[in-house]
């Protein structure tokens, strides 16, 4: 295993890891025809960290992101999120974790079409099964989130009426609304021109500075470098972990 022992120790001794995987494996197929997408991955991410995961296609970064995002379960190993072992939760419990603790930002924005920006941002609250907020509360919160990403004047717009950068901002507002433990960005700038892409990365940085834990999955080393640390995956294993030299800006 090629993880950097120094960082491990630092994380162990410093802030408590809010995300931790232990010998995480994901094996596809059955019998002899098995493919290990993840072959024993150990990651620790502390609260408030901005980490990027990078690797060529087939490195297992998507698989890792899906497991970290509770969209799938590991074949073996442990995944501890916010002090809870969630490696063996059922689909319903995973859905609740996604709803409460994870905010996704996808490459293709993945907003609901013909649904206003405000209602798109509110969507996670709709699936909150211990629903204690009134509709007005939810709308107020969604508006707050849209203001945070600079779209306070676009609440009634449909996604198709917004630019790509604006749509991605709506998606970020949606990811923030549940005050998640972790925000996962899956190539969030992949569909944007470099200018809008830079804006989105700047927004990620701002959110990070406000205390959010961010995991950015990308294939682009330049984008990965925006994070404090970069985990480089290859063939289902961590090849190396690099510090990007800007522990916290300012």
């Amino acid at each position, binding site marked *: 295993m090629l993880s950097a022992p120094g960082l491990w120790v630092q994380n162990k001794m410093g802030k408590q890891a809010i995300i931790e995987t232990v010998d995480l494996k994901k094996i596809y197929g059955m019998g002899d025809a098995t493919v290990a997408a993840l072959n024993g991955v150990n990651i620790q991410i502390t609260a408030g960290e901005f980490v990027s995961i990078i690797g060529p296609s087939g490195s297992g970064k998507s698989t890792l992101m*899906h497991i970290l*995002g509770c*969209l*799938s379960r590991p074949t073996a190993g442990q995944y501890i999120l916010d002090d809870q072992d969630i490696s063996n939760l059922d*689909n*319903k419990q995973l*859905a*609740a974790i*996604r*709803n*409460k603790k994870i905010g*996704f930002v*996808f490459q293709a924005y*993945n*907003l*609901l*079409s*013909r649904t206003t920006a405000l209602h798109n941002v509110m*969507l*996670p609250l*709709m*699936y*909150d*099964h211990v*629903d204690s907020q009134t509709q007005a509360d939810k709308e107020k919160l969604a508006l707050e989130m849209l203001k945070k990403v600079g779209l306070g004047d676009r609440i009634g717009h449909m996604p198709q009426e917004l630019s790509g950068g604006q749509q991605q901002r709506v998606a970020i507002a*949606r990811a923030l609304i549940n005050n998640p433990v972790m925000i996962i960005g899956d190539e969030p700038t992949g569909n944007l021109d470099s200018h809008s892409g830079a804006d989105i990365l700047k927004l990620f940085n701002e959110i990070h500075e406000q205390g959010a834990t961010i995991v950015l999955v990308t294939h682009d080393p330049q984008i990965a470098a925006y994070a404090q640390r970069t985990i480089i995956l290859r063939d289902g294993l961590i090849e190396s972990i690099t510090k990007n030299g800007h522990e916290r800006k300012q």
Partner: protein
Amino acid sequence: MKLSEVVKISWEAIAKNKIRSMLTMLGVIIGVAAVIGVVSISAGTEATINDQISGLGSNLIFITANFGRGGRDSFAPNNRGGLVFNDAYAIAQQVPGVVGVTVEQDASETVKANGVTLTDISILGTTIDFPTVRSMNIASGSYFTQQAVDQKQKVVVLGASLATQLFGTSDPVGQYITIGSTQLPVIGVMAPKGAVGGIDYDARAYMPITVVFQKFTPSEFARFRGDRVRLIYVKVDPSVKLDDVILQIQLLLYKRHNVTSSAPDFSITTQQDIIATQEATTAAFRNLLAWVAGISLIVGGIGIMNIMLVSVTERTREIGIRQAVGATAEDIRIQFLMEALLLSIFGGLVGLVVGMGGSILFGALSGMRTVIVPSSVFLAFGSAALVGIFFGYYPANRAAQLDPIEALRYE
């Protein structure tokens, strides 16, 4: 997710594809409308028939002859084989609770009067109780008397439309008509009654039954047994128990005909029997039609299932997004199930309006009576909702079972 939100989301999804939703609902609309329409038309027909049977007069007992083996005009050796005219008199005189007894003997003759010749006119020989028993009234002139019956007086009372056909607007009373080769004076005209049970009561001529026996249906055995009749109508006092009267008549006729209760030569039916038989027949027919109409509801359900499967496929990405932000399988299932249910309920409501409106319109335009049966409305609508749930479940379940990763990748 709150139910109101589920309904809202589903409704929006339906509203997004208006034409497709309308076409999907068409099957259910036709199914529900057909069930309601078919039932209302057949219920209307049933009500009409019941009215006609009741129109014969109320509290009626019908006594019919059981004919001997050789057919209706043969006599069995033991003198069995039917009713005679005098049986009617005997019942009228000896059975308590009887209000009126009437006997009918019909014939078909050519009628001439006033230069008009009508062929195949129904001539009904009957007794003086006929207007009472059959609830008919005299419009002008008078009905014939018991004396006329006893003395075989050749007089005639015309039905309303027959009178108009022969004499137009002039009063036929006092004029003469020729029936067959017999000339008779018209002594009265009946008030219109209309067609009852397929017989037009207004197109007939009425005369004393004894005249019909003598002139139009002479029986060669009348000298030995009396004049044979096929049917005796007995009208019973409404305050008397019908069964008691039936028993009395049975005992009387057993004695008169010298038969036992095990082998009677007559049968007794009541109006209720006829209505019950009629109802059973029409109800069976109505149920059959309703089931056939109900099949189109199932076809409508298959239409819903088909379009829901398309919808689930089209919205795979949306399902993935909802799953990513925390929707459970139940959340997704209820959403698509609600969509199918709304389609069927809305289709059911439209079908209800179309079915009820169509029944009323059909009744108004065709002149046929239609009766909207509430139970059929509830049944059709309820079935539509059930069809939505039943046929919506499979697509909804398919949506719920989607893998979020696959769903998010779906282009």
